[in-house]
């Protein structure tokens, strides 16, 4: 079953320069889309598709048609209703056709109603296996339901149930609701963190340029900190117990990288603002951002510069923010050469976690098969030289002095290593690190360090 979307022909003053046969000039040739066909769908409602397809009718050159067709294909795929989509572009013929009109056909294949989930992801230096099932496109309005559990190799468990729905429009948006239960560990201090929570997410995506998106989230979560060993620092033990965080989060992402893991060109910027204190017992304002910039020096050499930072303001009077809210620095994907959460003294009198931090990195990537044409190895593996710098601080009353202190005795490390890409979002790193500048109490790694994750600096 198919459907036909046609644009009535009402512009008659089109320039008649059709005699150019050169295919290069064909790209610049005036063109319009007369008809768009959608074939192969039965369940999905028309109005879900219309808003995406309307873009096709704005094309004014052949080149433009091809570009738009790709954008539309991507937008349709992002509805998560289709298994695959193929595009055919042909000269339109028939009674309604115009002299330089084209006919675009989208051949789609819908996903089955129920399908299983089995894949792996990586986050925060831990690999996860995801198992679960999902119901696709339940009523034809691009609404989905899924239940999944993820198990990590460090013992983190996460259970998640999610309902999501796409709202068609010129800015496409997606709402989703999650219920989750998460258990994670901090082995150095024998800590276990349990979380039970709900998350409502509203995602806005500028549909024409897929690289600008905004998320508005509400998160309500009950946290439980449990220190298992008598040897855990007492300051951390004092924070153990139950607390509720109820927060609104806003995430802005600009991503023009050509790959999420091993990019050649582009920039990435993500900023998160979080305000907690709508109910619950912790109140804070937390901002943090990450930025990455890539530039191709030569065919085989890529330069990456990154900078990130965060700032937390405690707004609470009775109950203070605890270690699950504060920042930690260090780890094989952020400040290399230090253990995960390895920066800062953990002796008895120091509070764990900090209220502000900054971290930066400079990478020079080299393709392993130097000088060869792009092949699989060059796409998946890179050698890199890196240099990391960063510091943590508590902002006191005297902002100026603490600000200079933050940038004075910073931590510095450098090294070489191999970076590998698995799938589209997992990054493996195996580095030989050497911490150059550090403070007493830091847990350093002087030698080989292995990291896996999706977020990196």
């Amino acid at each position, binding site marked *: 079953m198919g459907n036909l979307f046609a644009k009535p022909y009402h512009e008659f003053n089109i320039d008649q320069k059709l005699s150019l046969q050169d295919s290069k000039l064909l790209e610049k040739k005036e063109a319009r889309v007369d008809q768009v066909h959608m074939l192969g769908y039965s369940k999905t409602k028309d109005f879900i598709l219309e808003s995406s397809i309307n873009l096709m009718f704005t094309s004014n050159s052949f080149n433009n048609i091809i570009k738009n067709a790709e954008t539309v294909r991507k937008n349709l795929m992002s509805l998560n209703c289709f298994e695959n989509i193929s595009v055919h572009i042909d000269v339109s013929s028939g009674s309604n056709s115009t002299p330089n009109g084209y006919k675009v056909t989208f051949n789609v294949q819908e996903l089955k109603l129920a399908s299983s989930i089995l894949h792996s992801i990586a986050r925060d230096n831990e690999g996860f296996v995801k198992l679960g099932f999902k119901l696709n496109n339940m009523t034809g309005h691009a609404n989905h339901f899924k239940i999944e559990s993820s198990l990590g190799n460090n013992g983190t468990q996460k259970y998640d149930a999610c309902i999501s729905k796409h709202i068609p429009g010129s800015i496409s948006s997606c709402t989703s609701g999650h219920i989750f239960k998460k258990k994670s560990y901090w082995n150095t201090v024998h800590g276990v963190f349990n979380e039970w929570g709900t998350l409502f997410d509203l995602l806005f995506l500028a549909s024409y340029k897929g690289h600008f998106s905004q998320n508005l989230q509400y998160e309500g979560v009950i946290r439980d900190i449990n220190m298992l060993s008598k040897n855990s620092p007492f300051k951390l033990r*004092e924070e153990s*117990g139950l607390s509720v965080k109820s927060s609104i989060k806003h995430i802005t992402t600009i991503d023009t990288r050509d790959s999420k893991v091993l990019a050649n060109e582009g920039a990435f910027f993500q900023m998160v603002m979080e305000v907690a204190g709508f*109910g619950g017992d912790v109140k804070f304002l937390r901002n943090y951002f990450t930025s990455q910039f890539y530039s191709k020096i030569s065919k085989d050499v890529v330069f990456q510069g990154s900078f990130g930072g965060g700032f937390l303001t405690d707004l609470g009077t009775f109950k203070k923010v605890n270690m699950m809210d504060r920042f930690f620095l260090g780890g094989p994907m952020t400040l290399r050469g230090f253990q995960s959460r390895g920066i800062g003294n953990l002796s008895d009198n120091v509070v764990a976690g900090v209220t502000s931090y900054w971290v930066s990195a400079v990478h020079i990537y080299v393709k392993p098969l130097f000088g060869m044409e792009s092949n699989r190895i060059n796409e998946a593996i890179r050698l890199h030289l890196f240099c990391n710098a960063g510091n943590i601080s508590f902002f006191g009353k005297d902002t100026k002095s603490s600000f200079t202190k933050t940038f004075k005795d910073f931590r510095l490390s450098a090294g070489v290593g191999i970076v590998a890409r698995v799938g589209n979002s997992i990054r493996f790193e195996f580095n030989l690190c050497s911490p150059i500048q550090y403070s007493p109490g830091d847990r350093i790694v002087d030698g080989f360090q292995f990291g896996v994750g999706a977020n990196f600096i």
Partner: protein
Amino acid sequence: MADFKTSSSILTKECLRTQICGESEWPKNTVLYQPYETEQILLPDNSKCLSVKTFLKMAGLEFIVEARENAEYMSPHRGKVPFIKAGQFLVADFEPIVNFAQSKGYSLSTHLDEAQKWDLRVYMALVNNVLLNAEIYVTWNHELTYKELTKPRYSSVYPFPLNHWATYYKRREMLSHLDVLGWKKKTLDEVFKEVERICESLSNFLADKKYFFGEKPTDLDALVFGHLFSIITTPLLNNRFAATIRAYDNLVQLCVRIETEFYQSRIL
């Protein structure tokens, strides 16, 4: 063999620990952590806290009391209050604290002979098994008390929705504890009968002595005082629990004696 090795290494560690404990004096700045007394604490926890405080006072050990709303979660043995932080050591619950003090050379039962030491252990086990469980029963399993007193007090430190959540889980834990010990299915009358029986045997054992073992107070006196004093002074829905104990005059007199001697105040 491997098992033996690990267990022996654990033993060595424990020996080392006790040795280190034994070497030094009672640490200065020892802090006792407990829940907030007026708004939060419940009868069973209150009894245990009072027992420990009384013991430490009897042994002449210095300590500071600090109230924390999350004392129960801070405890090295989750859910057990009170606990003490003595130097680098964290010790929770009455008996481990008594043992810890003993390893430092402070004991209230050194003057007892072997038979008396057995008596002491038996009565302490009896108090822990009966009085403590009766307190837990009244606090968590008696529907009316739970609704009127336990729930508002326990959830007072938590915001919504944690107040329901935390209380629900705590209650489930305490009920399964009672279930394992076979107390859950008892009726209130049966529970009070048990309390009556132990009071009678304690009363007989005390007779008209000053303390259970003569002129000097022991661990048992601290434990019994903690429980009886809390039961008598804690306002419950009806005074049946307190009345059961008040019927034994020499036990009440023991409480009065300990209170005036170690707390320099008079409530009873």
